[in-house]
């Protein structure tokens, strides 16, 4: 199925499992994750820390340390089986078909080179042009990501730039090879509110113009609302709910998604308690047998902890891994307005 060229999926994950093995314990970071991304689509993976969202992305690019990681399942990107790629093919994938931007651009940029040279080098590596051309293209790219006075910034070192500009430079670098797929790992989390919205709007615009597919990892439902076409909610290494962003945020079918929405703080909840999800996420070394969310779920039934609830498909790519998905319980209390 992976080699099926008729499928128009840009990314296809099937039963992806990622385990980190060490002498003391085995951490099941990602468990049976399956998802698809169509070309030109923006998918947001929403989850809290330890939900496996970043690990899935890194597995997609084979960025995890090979020795301590056990990856099983199928990953295909643009028709290529990522888990079988070797050497040159792999580096073609990493900087050609797929690019990645990170939360902290300072770690992705080399502090001792000017940003112009770094972008030019990335361009030259993929297009085999000379430095002159590379710099020209670097300037174009900086203008594309709306860096003010781009000419001057070409000669700047990363530490001379503000956080927002650094993030733009990193985006420019990621776009230098015209990727088909952009992976974004919380790229706006470390930014200030006024800068975050600028970067989000920029990414949305660039994605549309270049027709890239994008997987955007975030913990912030607000960010997903701004940028996503479709949303996948992860909890304890599993996808618990998928759907379009309108469906998931407007009509959540998994109690975890509902809990996340209810516990997102809003000013108009002042003076009231927030409906927080009690407890803590499970220990990934000792996942419970049934639904991982069962210990924190207020709609829990006896059968929840017996076996892993199946994926319930509700048509149109809508899925929820909950026994009550098709018939959501009546909300006892007024929920925080999700919208």
């Amino acid at each position, binding site marked *: 199925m992976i080699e099926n060229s008729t499928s128009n999926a840009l990314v296809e994950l099937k039963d992806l499992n990622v385990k980190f093995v060490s002498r003391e314990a085995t951490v099941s970071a990602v468990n049976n994750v399956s998802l698809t991304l169509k070309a030109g689509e923006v998918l947001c993976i929403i989850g809290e820390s330890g939900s496996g969202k970043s690990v899935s992305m890194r597995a997609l690019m084979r960025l995890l340390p090979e020795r301590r990681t056990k990856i099983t399942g199928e990953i295909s990107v643009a028709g290529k089986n990522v888990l079988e790629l070797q050497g040159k093919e792999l580096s073609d994938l990493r900087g050609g078909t797929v690019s990645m931007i990170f939360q902290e651009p300072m770690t992705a940029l080399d502090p001792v080179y000017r940003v112009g040279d770094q972008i030019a080098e990335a361009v030259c590596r993929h297009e085999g042009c000379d430095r002159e051309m590379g710099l020209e293209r670097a300037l174009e790219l900086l203008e594309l990501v709306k860096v003010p006075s781009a000419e001057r910034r070409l000669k700047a070192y990363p530490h001379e730039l503000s956080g927002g500009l650094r993030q733009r430079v990193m985006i420019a670098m990621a776009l230098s090879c015209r990727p088909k797929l952009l992976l974004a790992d919380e790229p706006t989390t470390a930014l200030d509110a006024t800068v975050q919205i*600028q970067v989000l709007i920029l990414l949305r615009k660039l994605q549309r113009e270049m027709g890239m597919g994008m997987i955007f990892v975030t913990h912030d439902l607000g960010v997903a609302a701004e940028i996503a076409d479709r949303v996948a909610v992860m909890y304890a290494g599993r996808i618990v709910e998928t759907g379009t962003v309108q469906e998931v945020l407007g009509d959540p079918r998994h109690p975890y998604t509902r809990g996340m929405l209810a516990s997102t703080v809003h000013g108009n909840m002042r003076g009231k*308690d927030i409906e927080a999800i009690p407890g803590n996420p499970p220990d990934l070394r000792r996942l419970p047998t049934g639904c991982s969310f069962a210990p924190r779920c207020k709609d829990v039934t006896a059968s929840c902890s017996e076996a892993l609830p199946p994926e319930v498909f509700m048509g149109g790519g809508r899925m929820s891994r909950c026994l009550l998905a098709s018939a959501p319980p009546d909300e006892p209390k007024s929920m925080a307005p999700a919208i």
Partner: protein
Amino acid sequence: MNADTNISEPAAPTLTSVQPVDRRDRGGNAQPMLIARGLKKHFPITGGVLNQVVGHVRAVDDVSFSVLKGETLGVVGESGCGKSTLARLLMHLIEPDEGNLVFDGDAVGEVDGLSVRDMRRLMQMVFQDSYSSLNPRMPVQDSVAYGKRVHGATNAEARAAARELLEKVGLDPNLFGPRYPHELSGGQKQRVNIARALVLEPRVVILDEAVSALDKSVEAQVLNLLRYLKQHFNLTYVFISHDLNVVQYISDRVLVMYLGEIVEIGPVDEIYDSPRHPYTRALLASRLSMDPDDRIEEPPLVGDPPNPVNPPSGCRFRTRCQFAEKICEVESPAVTGWRETSEHMTACHMYVEKSGHSMAKAPAPSPAIIAAGKPPVSHVV
């Protein structure tokens, strides 16, 4: 939230959040818990071979405000606006270059006032990074008990107080007390940090981005806990955060900072419903909508905050402000009230009559226009 439990005399009209009389009060209900006057801190930047001073980071510049008894004062601003420096100045963890603090009527650090050591017992702080703010080599109950021991309690007393507080913050002392920080989750560590701050029975707790690093579901738990503790221990909070929604949720009054200066301060509803300063408006307009069908199409502000090393002359916001005029470059606006209100103050030439700003001559911008976050376009120069 305390209106129905308030058994004291009705307070003065401006002090809506006064708690029942606390016997630890020295100055009475109307006396602000904390007054900061003209706080200033410039950090020297050294460079070169001889480590000479090549510039100053103007982290906090002439900041004055007061914190009322029993209220929560939210402090918002972007990174580099000096809000964390402000927290450390309030705690005297760094010495201010200028300015002073008055704690419940007593000047802090002066001869006949309150000593810094005593002030630190009355005012405590919770840090953002729940990991590095706990000693990794100490069981958490000892970390909590430590402050008590410093102030002369016996081991047994300190331990008992620590266990009681752990219970209060929702951690079973038998289960969690003997654990080490690495055996706790982020939210649990932050609960320990809160217990540690409360062990000295402070009046004021400064929460420096205390929930910012937590996951949303845990953040909600901790916010609920903070609300409960405030009531239970009759606390006053200074809540520093970059998250506008959280600040709106928890604060009674809000202080907005930009590049080391106060740009606007006032009751939370006024700030959020009718912000005055262009920066506050932009900040509020940058909040994510949570509605996929109503996305923000145009960024309210362009560019990043400037470097606090060499802030712009005059009004520091003028470089990003669409209303900036000549006067903004020349003169730095004072924090003033508009018309009859003294609660809601802002530092903008547009709100000072005859300031020289073209919009200042006009009558006050109509609330409807401001509430919509849209500038009266006709006045743009």
